[in-house]
């Protein structure tokens, strides 16, 4: 193009710089890198999300207990503070790493990348990552796992799904836990399931009681394990 037809701002003039820079994209790119690393080593990875107290650790414990004879398993626990959950999972004889986020309310792909560099991925078949207990922020921060699982429990009440639709929209599997408490809580799990399918019609939903072990085998099956 002839330079006389290109309009450039004079110095001192107001100038609009056009950019297309996505702030959340940096995390998504790192998540893709994590996914690539995990694929390279043949590690199957699962991001377990859910509220505080929904049963994420119990679900991982149940899955580890069931699968540790067949697979080499590792787990990464994410919490604001303490190593309590990682220690619980570690008691089942698998490798665990704890990420303490300090103040952040979710794990992000960068923290997971750091954790992956501390694991011997060639000696792992399955990696469970327990996200920070939160139904909001983790939705915006994919970690690069093969599947994202959201755990909800009947003790959280009937309306948790419609109050937190985005985390369900981005999930690959939903687990309704503490199903043994539904009568006591007066919560109908079918209602929770209907809400989940309103948000995401093709999402597989499994009812569990991690306490009694009910449904844990179905979760393993749904994850292709």
């Amino acid at each position, binding site marked *: 193009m002839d330079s006389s037809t290109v309009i450039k701002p004079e110095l001192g*003039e107001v100038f609009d710089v056009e950019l297309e820079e996505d702030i959340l994209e940096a995390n998504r790119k790192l998540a893709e890198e994590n996914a690539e690393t995990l694929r390279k080593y043949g590690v199957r990875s699962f991001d377990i999300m859910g509220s505080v107290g929904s049963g994420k650790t119990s679900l991982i414990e149940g899955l580890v207990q069931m699968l540790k004879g067949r697979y080499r398993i590792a787990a990464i626990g994410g919490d604001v503070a303490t190593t309590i959950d990682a220690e619980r999972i570690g008691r089942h004889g698998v490798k665990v790493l704890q990420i303490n986020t300090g103040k952040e309310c*979710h794990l992000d792909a960068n923290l997971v990348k750091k954790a992956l560099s501390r694991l011997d991925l060639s000696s792992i078949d399955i990696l469970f990552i327990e996200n920070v207990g939160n139904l909001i922020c983790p939705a915006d921060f994919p970690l690069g796992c093969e599947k994202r699982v959201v755990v909800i429990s009947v003790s959280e009440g009937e309306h948790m*799904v*419609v109050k937190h639709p985005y985390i369900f929209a981005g999930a690959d599997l939903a687990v309704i836990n503490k199903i043994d408490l539904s009568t006591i809580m007066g919560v109908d799990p079918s209602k929770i399931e209907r809400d989940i399918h309103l948000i995401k*019609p093709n999402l597989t939903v499994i009812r569990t009681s991690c306490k009694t072990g009910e449904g844990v085998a179905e979760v393993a099956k749904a994850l292709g394990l």
Partner: protein
Amino acid sequence: MHELSVANEIVRVAIREAEKRGAKQVKSVHLAVGRLTHLSKEQLTFCYNLLKKDTILKGSRLIITEQEPTVKCGSCGYLGPISKVADDELGLWAVSLTCPKCGEPVEIKEGLECRIKAIRMVLDKN
């Protein structure tokens, strides 16, 4: 809840772009935020205004446009606004990944972004 770290990144990018062009002042930073993110407009603006102090951005405004979600249906080819489910009795409102035309699952095309679209700056005469 993570508006502070997102605002920090916005400030970092805006300062980088302003310095790259030798700007003497930044007037405004224009941001598109998808409604499917959990980012709050008010909190982002609040954090931006805290972080801009003592930087080249100090006299600038963060202008946020909310991006409506768009979905694409793999079955019937629908491309358009996302379906919504509402329960007026409970005051609930939620999005649904169901195709408004054929009821099949849809894929999100827009609504997850937090994109700096433009930065308005005044260039230095020297």
